[in-house]
């Protein structure tokens, strides 16, 4: 109950909970929430037993696509996503980091073929708990916190 008081209740929309605080603004950016007209509320630096400090986002009248959910999985694998209908949790979306991530992460290596040819990037999650991704092409490894989302 205490949790509910911290951020305003949502009638219809999506709640993204358990985001590490430092990832909040990146999540907002990749979901394009800085450019929408929907009502968005977020909480920042909330107490969390699991994460220390966590963040939460509530978006009215928006339901995430699987593609958007995957992007969140890359940045915040512990996040919980709930679809809310009439103040009730209608669906819990499962966050699953795919083994292969095509066209979401940008390779940071300027000499990588993916930055020199019109083509999709492809990364493999080599360590899902640490959030390590390896470029399928140039074989460089990026850590989750350094990931650049396309």
């Amino acid at each position, binding site marked *: 109950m205490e949790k509910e008081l911290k951020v305003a209740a949502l009638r219809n929309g999506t709640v993204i909970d358990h985001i590490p605080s430092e990832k909040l603004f990146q999540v907002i950016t990749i979901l394009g929430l800085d450019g929408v007209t929907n009502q968005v509320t977020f909480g920042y630096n909330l107490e969390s037993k699991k994460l220390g400090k966590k963040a939460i986002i509530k978006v009215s009248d928006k339901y995430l696509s699987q593609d958007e959910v995957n992007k969140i999985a890359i940045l915040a694998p512990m996040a919980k996503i709930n679809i809310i209908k009439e103040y009730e949790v209608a669906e819990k979306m499962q966050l699953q980091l795919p083994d292969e991530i095509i066209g979401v992460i940008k390779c940071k*290596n300027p*000499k*990588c*073929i*993916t930055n*020199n*040819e*019109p*083509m999709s990037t492809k990364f493999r999650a080599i360590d899902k708990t640490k959030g390590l991704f390896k*470029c*399928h*092409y*140039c*074989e*460089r*490894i990026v850590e989750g916190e350094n990931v650049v989302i396309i």
Partner: protein
Amino acid sequence: MANRSLVSITDYSRDKILQILDKAAAFEKNPNQQILNGKVVATLFFEPSTRTRLSFETAVNRLGGRIIGFSDASTTSGTKGETLKDTIIMVSNYADLIVMRNPIEGAARYASEVSSVPVVNAGDGANQHPTQTMLDLYSIKKTQGRLENLKICMVGDLKYGRTVHSLIQAMSHFNPTFSFIAPKELELPEEYKLFCKEHNIPFEEHTELNEANIADADILYMTRVQKERFTDLFEYEKVRNVYTLRNKLLENTKPNLRILHPLPRVNEIDYDVDNNEKAYYFQQAKNGVYARQAVICDLLGL
């Protein structure tokens, strides 16, 4: 399609490595055979590398194959704005196998995905150069009689040296012990130290090339320390002399020690070492032809 190419040394299992090395040994005994009769091999060099190109072309020529291709980026269609994909699709219509050198990292992996014929990576920037690794392995096995349980000392630029990184990956199948000798600026990246730890491979790190640090080595793998890698030229001058291998340093090394170097060398091996029986780098380069003959024939199913 993709699985018939050689892009990265990690494409090869332990068994595959050993199988290719056996094949290479057979080619060393009998390098002139008409196995590639009627085959066309394309050598596409988007950046010049005369040494590598001559080695591949010798390998093909000695097996009776024909060669098409280019050796200089200025003659390639890429300069006219053509994508790599289009170039590779065109060439794979003409050739039975493509050998490609490209400064863009990952270019070979991508080429192997769009090509209808096998692709051999002859170097993609700082990433991979697997036939170099195969000739290194061949040289190690030939001089030591085995690949297992060897102590391999790697010296010089361990940060950017791709031959070093690939050799670590390849040797991980054979229970090695490594010693990494490099100046602080050029030490082995964390990623490869982690790789060793994960594979339970013991390693030491030193910043000095001296008698004590190479006393128990079976292989001394020298690399070039390039001036361009240093932001501080004063540091470079300091390091340059410290990392030069001289005959005197070799006096108390093990009798089976052999010195490898991917070549070209600049000044990291003194010329007085050339006549030492432990110097193996020129023979090592020659072994490249046999290793490449083995790789090419394997990819073509011959």
